């Protein structure tokens, strides 16, 4: 919307009263109460069975919202990873030869079974990961089921994946997933791998293993043949064992660019296939003719969705100078209304930061922003005493050389920069080693098409942000990794074309 002075109507003199909520209205708690049906202890899932780790070691997993212990998770060592790969290898011939339609029916079953237990899984996801229940309930779990449903239908149609070529499964796939979308990342990995006829060894993130191991219950309920999917829990050492295992025909990794590069080095000299979905520092461009009300909602969703623990988060806001002041003012008003706190509360917008380590990293980067001269805006919301929380934060007066404009923060922290011309916006947006995603806000269709062609990123959201779908390929340019997940393109990374 243009500034009021641009409109010579009588309305221009009457500015709408500002609606301010923030902490002025107290909300009654609205806790989600469904039973997550947690077990006190989770074992590894190998060859269709829950299996105690050979080392006998377990580690605690907590609720980041209150730091209380939720369960013990089996720690997979090299011998357990071996056993998982052996099971996957044994399962491969029969699974890959199964008619595609039959393989697909297992995946359809899995989707349906997850839908049946959706609320239980949503609660477990929120308890272990810290994300608001409204997100795990309305996004993570339904989207996970949708991914299985989508890929199920591909299993008997693989000849359409690579036109003019034959495709074959790769074999055993090792997969390592992050903690920001534990179930959804599992679905992004398992869906295409299984549809294409591969078998899998997957490691969930150390801090969020519960829903993965709960998911093994669904695989059992679906009657999935033993060994087709194996879960090994643990931290970096377990991940390294999964990646380095000689039995893996392909590795798929989602996580930091730093670890991605280490994986690239460790796989040099092998013939393993690899896909990497790594970090990002997405530019979200607000042009002077953008619909500002919509844009502000999009900015908020772009950076505060899932506490900003999103590799494609719109963490660099590039605003055209003529509307920068207006956008920043609206943004500051909007973040004052965000409700930060108990993730299990249905009204919560921003839940808990996933771990103490991540909170430390966010805190350190925000401190660097202040030190380097940017201006920090935070609402004065009250944070719970226990647990890991961070206020929604917006930095103005940011320059391209600031760390907060270059490094992935992976938290609820937005850096606002300005530009004068569209060429300058493109230059700034592309001036990064990353290239995962970008956003464009403008009222003009031709500008959208021009900018979406010029922004070097694998996903471009025009007048929207952070939208995902199983049919929509996702993945990056440059140091954001390679390969795609979702859609026909995602399947291509799980087959041999020839």
């Amino acid at each position, binding site marked *: 919307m243009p500034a009021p002075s641009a409109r010579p109507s009588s309305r221009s003199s009457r500015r709408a009263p500002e609606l301010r909520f923030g902490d002025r209205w107290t909300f009654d708690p609205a806790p989600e109460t469904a039973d997550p049906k947690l077990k006190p202890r989770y074992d590894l899932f190998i060859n269709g069975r829950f299996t105690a780790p050979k080392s006998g070691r377990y580690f605690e997993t907590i609720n980041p919202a209150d730091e209380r212990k939720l369960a013990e998770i089996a720690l997979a060592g090299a011998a357990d990873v071996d056993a998982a790969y052996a099971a996957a290898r044994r399962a491969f011939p029969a699974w890959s030869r199964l008619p595609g339609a039959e393989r697909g029916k297992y995946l359809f079953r899995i989707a349906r079974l997850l839908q049946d237990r959706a609320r239980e899984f949503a609660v477990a996801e929120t308890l272990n990961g810290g994300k608001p229940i409204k997100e795990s309930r309305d996004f993570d779990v339904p989207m996970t089921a949708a991914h299985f449903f989508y890929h199920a239908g591909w299993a008997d149609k693989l000849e359409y994946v690579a036109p003019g070529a034959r495709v074959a499964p790769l074999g055993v796939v090792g997969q390592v997933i992050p903690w920001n979308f534990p179930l959804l990342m599992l679905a992004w990995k398992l869906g295409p791998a299984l549809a294409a006829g591969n078998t899998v060894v997957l490691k969930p993130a150390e801090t969020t293993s519960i829903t993965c191991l709960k998911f093994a219950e669904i695989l059992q309920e679906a009657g999935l043949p033993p060994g087709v999917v194996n879960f090994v829990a643990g931290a970096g050492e377990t991940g390294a064992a999964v990646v380095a295992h000689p039995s893996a025909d392909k590795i798929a990794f989602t996580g930091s660019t730093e670890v991605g590069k280490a994986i690239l080095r460790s796989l040099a000299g092998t013939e393993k296939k690899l896909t990497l979905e790594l970090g990002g520092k997405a530019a979200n461009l607000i042009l002077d003719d953008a619909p500002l009300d919509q844009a502000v909602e999009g900015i908020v969703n772009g950076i505060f969705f899932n506490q900003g623990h999103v590799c494609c988060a719109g963490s660099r806001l590039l605003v055209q100078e003529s509307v920068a002041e207006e956008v920043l003012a609206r943004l500051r008003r909007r973040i004052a209304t965000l409700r930060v706190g108990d993730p299990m509360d249905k009204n919560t917008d921003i839940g808990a930061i996933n771990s103490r380590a991540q909170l430390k990293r966010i805190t350190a980067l925000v401190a660097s922003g202040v030190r380097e001269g940017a201006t920090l805006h935070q609402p004065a919301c009250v944070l719970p005493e226990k647990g890991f929380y961070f206020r929604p934060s917006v930095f103005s007066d940011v320059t391209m050389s600031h760390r907060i404009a270059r490094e992935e923060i992976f938290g609820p922290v937005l850096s606002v920069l300005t530009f004068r011309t569209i060429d300058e916006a493109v230059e700034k947006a592309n001036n990064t080693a990353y290239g995962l995603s970008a956003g464009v806000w403008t009222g003009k269709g031709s500008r959208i098409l021009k900018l979406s062609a010029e922004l070097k990123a694998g996903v471009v959201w025009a007048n929207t942000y952070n*939208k995902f779908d199983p049919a929509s390929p996702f993945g990056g340019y440059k140091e954001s990794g390679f390969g795609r997940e979702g859609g026909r393109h995602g399947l291509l990374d799980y087959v041999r074309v020839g």
Partner: protein
Amino acid sequence: MPRLTVTKTPKPYVGGAFIRSESGRVFPVHDARGAFFAHVPQCSRKDLRNAVEVAAKAGPGWARRTAYNRGQILYRLGEMLEARRAEMIDTLARFGAARAAATREVDAATDRLVHYAGWADKYEQVLGNVNPVASPHFNFTVTEPMGVVGVIAPDAPALLGLISLVAPVIVSGNTVIVLASEKTPYPAVLLGEMLATSDLPGGVVNLLTGFRRELLPTFATHAHLRAISAAASADERQALRLGAAESVKRVRFTELASPADWLGAGGQSVHAIRDFVEFKTIWHPVGA
């Protein structure tokens, strides 16, 4: 008295010009019978970096050409090769290919250019997609060139190997730096003369002659090279992958064991084009 022939000074084609190495170095090339043929520039790492610079400058313009135009230019390159077919066959034969094999190689190389010329305005329709998302958005996936790509051509077949690796990379709008066959560099020099008359803008294809051992590490690590397409030995593969890790460079190896393998249909595919494009997915609201 027999007339003394005027011999050619072989100069590789870089940035639309025929260059010597900035290092001033050359290495002697002998024909199959062991007779001295010429000195060929031994391009340096600095030559490679210079070539990357001109290729990066040429990239946006080449990528902005219409697909139809890129197709016509690749076809024109085929025309140039066909027109100098006899000379190219003589050259390959001079450096050791049997005459029949040389003929097959040149004809296959020409046909390969025509094949990829035809793909220019079609691969997008085969590789791109409109995606039926479950929300009110128009969602589509298109391809984009990666940028500057390094090509490590096989030693043999010197011409067909090079063209088979270069054509699928440039057809989508990438620009390339090619390291020509070390053993038989002259066919690439000759090809450069055809490139110069093919309407291909300068800087789109840049050919370097020189030593693999010296140049491969810089191909692997140069951050502005977004991808590598190589026919390489096991050791070279490992070194290329290790060097490419820091810039998360895309590295593809062509596994064709014998020179004869390059001749067949296995030497060309739309999936070779796919290997050197990025997929970009765009979301646009519908009705909002």
